[in-house]
């Protein structure tokens, strides 16, 4: 229970930081220094999103080989995923709502053409980042060696 509490608190901090930057229209600020706890929180987020984290990570590895993400750290990656997710930090922030927001954002990516072609798969930018996040969380993967085509 304690872990759950802590993880959500940290996650909310992430979201709050992203939310502020989203409102301000600026890049999301970096999260607090990485810690084992924050990784746990991100894992919790991904576990909420994916029934099978290992599959998501496997795809993330493909994405990493095909398309190097601009974000250099886990935290930056998390920020870019959550930036623009319109969550009011005090009132909501439940994982199901985050899940809903991310889902809507993925659909918005597809509508706007914010997609990447990864080995032929037409994927939204947001979900691609999620897969990469999963890969980085589960195992440190090597940096990519070839670019992807933009969708």
């Amino acid at each position: 229970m304690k872990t759950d509490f802590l993880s959500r608190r940290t996650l909310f901090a992430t979201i709050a930081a992203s939310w502020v930057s989203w409102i301000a229209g600026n890049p999301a600020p970096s999260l607090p220094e990485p810690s084992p706890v924050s990784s746990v929180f991100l894992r919790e987020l991904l576990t909420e999103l994916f029934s099978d984290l290992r599959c998501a990570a496997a795809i993330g590895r493909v994405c990493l080989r095909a398309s190097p993400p601009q974000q250099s750290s886990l935290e930056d990656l998390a920020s870019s995923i959550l930036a623009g997710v319109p969550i009011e930090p005090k009132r909501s922030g439940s994982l199901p709502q985050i899940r809903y927001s991310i889902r809507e954002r993925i659909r918005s990516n597809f509508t706007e053409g914010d997609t990447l072609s990864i080995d032929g798969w037409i994927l939204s930018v947001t979900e691609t980042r999620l897969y990469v996040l999963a890969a980085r969380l589960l195992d440190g993967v090597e940096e990519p060696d070839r670019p992807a085509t933009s969708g």
Partner: protein
Amino acid sequence: MIIDARSLPGGTKIDTEVCIVGAGAAGITLAREFTSARFRVVLLESGGLEFEAETQDLYEGRLLDTTLAALTASRLRFFGGTTNHWGGWCLPYEAVDFEVRQGLPHRGWPFDKAYLDLWYRRAQEVCQIGPYEYGPVSWGIWPEQIVPPFRGPNFVCKVLQQSPTRFGSAYEADLRQAGNVAVYLHANALTFVTDEMDKQVNKLSVGSLSGNRFSISARVYVIAAGGIENARLLLTSGKPNGPGLGNQHDCVGRFFMVNLNYSGGQIIPSDPYVNLDFFSGRAGSVYTGFGARQGFVSFIGLSAETMRDLQLPGAKILWQYKFKPVADAVSAARRFAAGESSSEGTLADLAKIIGNLDGISELAVRKALFHQGLPVEALTLDCSSEQLPNWESRIFLDIERDALDIPKIVVDWRLTPDDKKKAAATLRLLGREIGRAGFGRLRSSLDGEDARWPEDLYGDEHHMGTTRMHVDPRLGVVDADCRVHGMTNLYVAGSSVFPTSGASNPTLTIVALALRLADHIKERLM
């Protein structure tokens, strides 16, 4: 009556009012329209009533690109023509297919779809299919059955009808009994003999493989020998060493088009149990709502609005189901429920988690656990695209000659970079729409700017464009009446007159245009 031309005395001269070259869908349709007329009609057929290898070999030619369907396999040279082995798919071109469109050069017909509707309706009867209804609702497919993203705005469900008709066997009796129609079998059109200025055909030289030679004199001649042979006959006619008939602007044989067939990739549905009953697939379905059993095929296509807005050519998209083995699905569902997984490649990985992002995985698992239907692992896409008109894509005469001493043809089939770009754009749009709708994800076979066509690309049997219709003789071989530009009494029927195509199969349009030409000729002669 039906006559074997090999039995004619050599040098026979036959007088008639109308001479039709070729007894396929167009030629037979024309001749049937004249059975009640007061003028005489001669219908020439190169083959007999059945397949003969020696005659079929007259189709031999040289393909410079072997991804085009083989010339001797894609056509049939006996009474009934290629309808002797056609698939029977009938669908009119859409209004957008007739339009001149920005961004798509050389596109457009001299008239619109509404004008041709009259003859399309009559063509339905000739092809022995159902009423002139192509909306999915007319075939029992209700909008709510069609899952997003296939109910607009970019992709929609479309329907085509399946004809059972082999024109030869279906209409042989009509022509045999007609007192004013003479069908000559084993009668090959060799060359049109014209007046001094190549303005009028005076006679047609005809020969049999047996060596027999005779001639036909008619008031009106119609070439209905197929999308390649029509141009070939024009090129081999006229003055010796001349450019051929109707070829004063080097248009004959150019703009050769087919439909482009290729695998489009794979869709992983978010819900392996998604109800796709609206889609019949290539095998088709049967509808009895019109009082008789009528076969139809429902498929996916671009909406007219999207084709216009995004300057995309037509595309017909069908899929085949790749089912998960049931045992695997059940065990996967159990693993899923237990929080376990196994990694079996990107497709399998995506298949397991796409539903999470699209928000339907729990439903899918529940269905799996309760054995509701067979789970779909992937939909494998079969695409058929319209080829854009291309001046450089052409047929021309070879130096090699066939058994009748007629130059064989060379087919220099060429695609443009735009053909591929448009196909890739269509698939990319499909991928986005599938993702937007939460239907799943698409792996496109045309990935990226420098993507190559899929290895299974082939140009199909629908030969079009080589005597294209255009009001301007510099851009077409025949005018809007299908009369060869600059000639008084020579017409062309068949898909060679199509200035542009769509993704629809061509035969219904071939028949509609033949009916229209028949009306024109009747008016001219009566």
